[in-house]
């Protein structure tokens, strides 16, 4: 287990009052909504960024907005840090707690409150999982667009916290582009509503600010999101190339031609092998890089768009073009892609990077990534959202070897700096969390960061909400 990333030192005054705090929380919550014993707390000690673990002081599992407000009001009054949590699928450590913190886990607030097709909206409690929204609306011909790979488990509240994306965001945008309103609780327990079923804010766009704020501005308890009419059909097509350069150049040309497919996913050879071994998706194994391009619409429309894409791929010496013949086959293709992280976890420990780069730099960054990882004596698999330049190098290492883990973290940092240096950013959709916190100064100047931190403090003056995350620990206001 690595320890390179620091957490804030636990507040001794909070730790010493632990018993009293737990007793007070027990007055605020039904008995089944408070976890305080060691065995019960263990599942909350980390998220999907498993290299770091901290056992929290207690876990609150509220069932209502009023309970969320009561817990926050109490913690605010007595200066107890609070770490909001959805399903704990964060890859950047966004939901990892700390010893002096109460975890506020929204998983019990999991009701779909309203599906309003006349206005094309869904209103949900924060603990509703991403996939359930689309499943619930499917029968009436609608879906919710952002689709993180963890969509089976991750919650809409967590999606808002991280402004989550997914494969289909190329056409439909990320969470912030599909979020219409929230009910949220501020750190002092005040309940506010931002937005609603209407478009655009009346005053400042606080909703836009809250989306992607990683649980630092408040705790969202309900959300209203946009539903979209499901396309008539969708078809993923596999394009195999000998080299990553060819695949990368093909992506750039597809976008430049004015075609915006629903998704363009990229896998390099190691990723293809890992995913194919796990999902038996029928990926070609004799290629160096694979693109999954999904188009949608009527049959005629998909044919027309695919013809153009096939023609462009031809200019980049495409080796294999495979259209799927059935919905089952299409589902399998996506299963392979979406299980990439899980499949990788079967063969090695890994950390997943999330930098985003301008499209024209894709090939360069892929090459440099390979060189960087090799220089640390490690292996890398690349599987990512190429259409919007959102890279996900998976750096493989052995977690039982502390030196290996440290090398993996160092390689990851080098890759993220590279992304920033070519005009991109540290994180496209996973968030800063603890993982990228100390790299923030590479992307932002002291003034840029000070402005962000001042805005953060306008919501949470005492820095109680998810305090170890996003902003470097020193130099806070």
């Amino acid at each position: 287990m690595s320890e390179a990333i620091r957490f804030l030192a636990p507040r001794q005054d909070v730790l010493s009052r632990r018993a009293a705090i737990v007793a007070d929380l027990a007055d605020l919550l039904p008995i089944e909504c408070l976890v305080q014993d060691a065995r019960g707390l263990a599942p909350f000690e980390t998220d999907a960024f498993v290299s770091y673990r901290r056992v929290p002081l207690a876990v609150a599992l509220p069932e209502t907005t009023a309970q969320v407000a009561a817990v926050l009001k109490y913690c605010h009054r007595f200066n107890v840090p609070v770490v909001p949590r959805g399903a704990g699928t964060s890859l950047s450590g966004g939901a990892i707690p700390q010893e002096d913190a109460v975890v506020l886990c929204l998983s019990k607030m999991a009701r779909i409150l309203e599906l309003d097709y006349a206005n094309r909206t869904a209103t949900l409690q924060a603990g509703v999982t991403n996939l359930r929204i689309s499943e619930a609306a499917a029968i009436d011909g609608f879906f919710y667009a952002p689709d993180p790979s963890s969509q089976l488990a991750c919650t809409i509240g967590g999606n808002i916290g991280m402004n989550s994306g997914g494969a289909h965001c190329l056409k439909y945008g990320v969470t912030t582009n599909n979020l219409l309103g929230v009910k949220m609780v501020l750190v002092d327990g005040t309940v506010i509503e931002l937005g609603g079923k209407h478009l655009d804010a009346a005053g400042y766009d606080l909703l836009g600010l809250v989306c992607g704020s990683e649980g630092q501005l408040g705790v969202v308890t309900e959300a209203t999101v946009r539903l979209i009419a499901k396309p008539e059909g969708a078809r993923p097509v596999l394009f195999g190339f000998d080299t990553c350069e060819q695949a990368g150049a093909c992506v750039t040309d597809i976008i430049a031609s004015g075609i915006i497919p629903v998704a363009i996913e990229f896998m390099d050879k190691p990723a293809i092998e890992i995913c194919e071994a796990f999902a038996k998706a029928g990926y070609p194994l004799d290629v160096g890089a694979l693109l999954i391009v999904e188009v949608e619409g009527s049959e005629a429309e998909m044919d027309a768009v695919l013809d153009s894409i096939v023609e462009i791929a031809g200019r980049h010496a495409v080796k294999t073009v495979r259209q799927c013949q059935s919905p089952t086959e299409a589902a399998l293709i996506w299963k392979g892609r979406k299980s990439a992280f899980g499949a990788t976890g079967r063969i090695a420990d890994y950390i997943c990077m999330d930098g985003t780069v301008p499209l024209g730099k894709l090939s360069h960054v892929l090459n440099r990534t390979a060189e960087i990882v090799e220089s640390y004596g490690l292996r890398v698999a690349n599987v990512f959202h190429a259409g919007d330049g959102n890279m996900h190098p998976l750096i493989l290492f052995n977690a039982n070897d502390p030196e290996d883990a440290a090398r993996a973290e160092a390689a990851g940092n080098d890759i993220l700096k590279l992304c920033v240096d070519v005009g991109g950013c540290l994180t496209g959709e996973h968030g800063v969390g603890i993982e990228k916190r100390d790299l923030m100064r590479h992307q932002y100047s002291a003034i840029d960061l000070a402005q962000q931190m001042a805005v953060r403090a306008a919501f949470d003056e005492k820095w109680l909400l998810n305090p170890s995350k996003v902003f470097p620990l020193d130099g806070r206001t």
Partner: protein
Amino acid sequence: MLIPTSETDAAYIIRNAAAEGKALALCGGATRAGFGNFGQPAEIFSARGLRGILDYDPAEMVMTARAGTPLAEIEAALSGNRQMLAFEPMDHRGIMGTSGEPTIGGVFAANVSGPRRFVAGAARDSLLGVRFVNGKGEAVKAGGRVMKNVTGLDLVKLLAGSFGTLGFLTEVTFRLLPQPPAVETLVVSGLDDAAAAQAMAAAMALPVEVSGAAHLPLTVRHRFVNGGLPEGAATVLRLEGLSASVEVRAQKLAAVMAAFGPVERLVPEQSLLLWRQIRDVAPYADGTTRPLWRVSMAPSAGHQLVAALRLEAGVDAFYDWQGGLVWMRMEADAEADLLRRYILALGGGHATLVRAPDAMRSTIGAFQPQPEAVAALSARVRQTMDPAGIFNPGRMGVI
């Protein structure tokens, strides 16, 4: 009038103004200068001296420009590459009776969006990154130039729609979309407002990707495309994309819409003109200062609001965004209290007084009043950006 020609100059001016507590009226081309509340008198501080496209690689579909670049210059460059701003920014000169050149910074500062907004996002959704000078005279960068970016707090969204009360934009980076090769508009005729809302909701539930849905009642329909719309109120639906695909979708849509009323199609030239006129609120570009409201509500609530108001006041209205955007011209009084009460009763939303005689503007808040906690939060946010309170003070009301 202060017109800096560099970010450094702008920062210098702001630092001095902050030290003296001197108010600045931030603007671009001032074509939307009549927006918002009457604030304190302030010296005009325009970004129009910061001009020029800094970076545009059509293949990346991203552009960076200085904030004072005229929108016309941006659109000319995009048009040459068959690209566009997805959010279709409206031109306010017609309804506001202003002249001058709208700037790209002004478009984002006012979060100005047009008919495609309800499916393709607002100006704020296309804005990827900004540089601005805050009220302390510090140059701040936020966001970047890639589509996906969740690095830190999204100050970009905050600046969009802040009407020059949080920062002086110096540079904006925004995403682009390819221009659709084909456009088709279906007109369903003779529907009343309520039936039109149903028809538009039905259209949006179909997998045909409607990219414009407006309802033009009898009182306004003759003001569009030189009176060339078919007889009766016009419910108009736009389809865009590859021509083969648009044709297939148009047939599907027409088949379903036929159950609501007679369906006709416009010729392409009429189609382009129609949506530009809807975008620019042509019926109310009438050379008057009669009170004009812009109301954003749930699509199914828009017509209910108008029906309720009609019982008590003289109001003329038409609808965009599937009925969720209501443009309302009042015959006499602005009826602000009544209007805002009804909006709350009908499920919420907000009304902005876009235009009114000065006497009315001095007594009516231009923006929907916010709940106390949200207003307090907004004021605290503003305090962090403009601690001396010198940027367009009073323009957005309590904040």
